[in-house]
């Protein structure tokens, strides 16, 4: 199964995900990260927060998934970087998008970002990006 041949300027098909509190609890369990910031109403209230905060590292997983889904099983992620700009709260919907900025042999470089869509749209993660190797 060979998928899209990435060229400079090509858009990474966006990956859109609504992150519910249930998803956050599942992620906390899967990563052995039980920080109360991600689920505990009393802890949040004491710190002036109204909603559980999504663990930022999950965006790394989603940025990786967007690329792997697009480029298929021959693709192997070599590098991934991301900077956090805004908190994302339980129940919000994010869209991970990107575009190819360089293709050099088997290595594809992409710029990516995570934006929150919905009532309070904003960029949550940027700059971000990756280098993917298309294995032969």
């Amino acid at each position, binding site marked *: 199964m060979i998928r899209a041949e990435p060229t400079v300027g090509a858009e990474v098909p966006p990956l859109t*995900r609504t992150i519910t509190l249930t*998803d956050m609890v*599942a*992620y906390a*369990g*899967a*990563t*052995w*990260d*039980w*920080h*109360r*910031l991600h689920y*505990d109403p009393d*802890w949040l209230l004491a710190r002036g927060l109204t909603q559980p905060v999504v663990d*930022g*590292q*999950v965006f*790394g*997983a*989603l940025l*990786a*998934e967007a690329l*792997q*889904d697009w480029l298929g*099983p*021959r693709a*192997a*992620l*070599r*590098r*991934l*970087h*991301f*900077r*956090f700009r805004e908190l994302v709260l339980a129940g919000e919907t994010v869209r991970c998008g990107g575009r190819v900025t360089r293709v050099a042999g088997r290595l594809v470089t992409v710029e990516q970002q995570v934006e929150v869509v919905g009532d309070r749209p904003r960029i949550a993660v940027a700059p971000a990006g990756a280098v993917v190797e298309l*294995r032969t």
Partner: protein
Amino acid sequence: MTMLTEELRARIGEERVYTAPEELGRASIRYFARAVGDDNRLYTDDGYARQWGYEGVIAPPTLVCETNQYADVPRDGDGYAGHRWDLHVPGTRQVRGGNSYEFHRAVRPGDVVTATWVLVDIAERSTRDGRAMLVVTSRAQYTDQAGELLATNEEQVIYVSLDVPGGDR
């Protein structure tokens, strides 16, 4: 007043090493993939993974950098049970800056991960609105039981001053 005290500066270069008490395991891989909603068969189907040149199922690439499985440390008061430096920076709140990962080979269920964390740097900066902050840069290197490099993770955590510039607190 400088936030970067001599006590903090002396911590730069510190190292912590954690070795997981067990193999990563197929269940951890499937759990992570399911938790993030990733149905890629490379993570659950040995036959499919072999078709694509792997020895069997592999872990989603970022799992090794995101899990605290290797740390095996008690929870702190916030419920956190991963690596931490326990830096004391009074009058600040802590926020994540970002991460930069490098993946050297696909992680497999049989890998027993050792994470070696180094406190690379602590630098004083200011936010766009003029508040002081400390940027703490750490680097983790993940290796398997044979010492082979799996991945690296450079992470920035930021301690932002609660003092508002020009405020009369």
